[in-house]
């Protein structure tokens, strides 16, 4: 929550973005330093989550900014997506076979994953909390 005393301090939006970028930066450094197979931003996410759990105040101030970034997550995939269109020829002669593999495997993975989740949730009595 914004209180009058906070608004006189540094711009909260810029500070929040800086905190997110620092988490990513530390993640990138750790990934390379320790030669981890995990991408830097995923480590940054884990670090920020640990920070939130250690300090609910930090979570409270960053949550609006993270929601703002995630609200249009789809937009961020557009540049790479355009790359696909301009590289259609790399799909080459096996294009149809690859499409069949992608469609088939995505359907199978969704069905298998969701059914496993539901079955194990029922088995362990883990119910969804509707809000």
């Amino acid at each position: 929550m914004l209180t009058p005393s906070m608004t006189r301090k540094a711009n909260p939006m810029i500070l929040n973005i800086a905190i997110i970028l620092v988490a990513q930066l530390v993640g990138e450094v750790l990934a390379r330093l320790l030669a981890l197979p995990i991408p830097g931003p995923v480590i940054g996410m884990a670090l920020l989550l640990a920070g939130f759990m250690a300090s609910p105040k930090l979570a409270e101030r960053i949550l609006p900014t993270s929601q703002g970034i995630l609200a249009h997550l789809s937009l961020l995939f557009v540049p790479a997506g355009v790359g696909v269109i301009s590289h259609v020829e790399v799909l080459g002669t096996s294009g149809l076979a690859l499409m069949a593999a992608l469609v088939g495997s995505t359907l199978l993975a969704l069905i298998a994953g969701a059914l496993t989740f539901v079955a194990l949730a029922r088995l362990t009595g883990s119910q969804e909390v509707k809000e």
Partner: protein
Amino acid sequence: MSDLPDIWSYLREGPLLWLTATLVAYLIGDALFRASARNPLVNPVLVAMVILGAVLWATATPYATYFEGAQFVHFMLGPATVALAGPLYSNLHHVRRTLLPMAGALIVGSVTAVASALWIAQALGVEAATMASLAPKSTTAPVAIGIAEQLGGLPTLTAALVIITGIIGAVVVTPLMNALRITDWRARGFSVGVAAHGIGTARAFQVNETAGAFAGIGMGLNALLTALIAPYVLGLFQ
């Protein structure tokens, strides 16, 4: 005063035009998506891709020139991944109670995604180098590219297969889950995060916040698991 061709040749070389075009194309995609009563087939990423692909083709603009401007949007993928900590934290009370279903769905979903893709591709006669590019297609792009390089695949082909997989997942997940009568947002979100990474996760956030949070967890965990299992599963098909 410059004439129009001069202004055009100035603009098409700089980042401003292509950054603006990326945002406008996405806004058109998003507007069509809303106008279609959120029909999953009218995926905003897909619409924007087609519009921008057509504009680049019509103006004979190389992808590298386009990316000079679009890279500012592309860059935000990293901070957005970090920002997933937000919905994860908000849904932590759900996550704690869901460890076993998540672990099971992760392993089953991840192995199914890699093995069934390779099985279908092999049955249809796809060659070995392409199989290596295909194996990591359900993971988020930067991880998938790293895995493909380790396996001897082509990174650009992997990037294309990753994006197409994400769009397929985003398009089919809602009708598929409805057909299976799965109403649990956790299961719907988690499975699409595992099968269709960030684009599936973005789709889940459009539908439901809990689904989005679980999709984010599924995407992150699957990036780790696929890096571990892809070499072994690929070995079974060679």
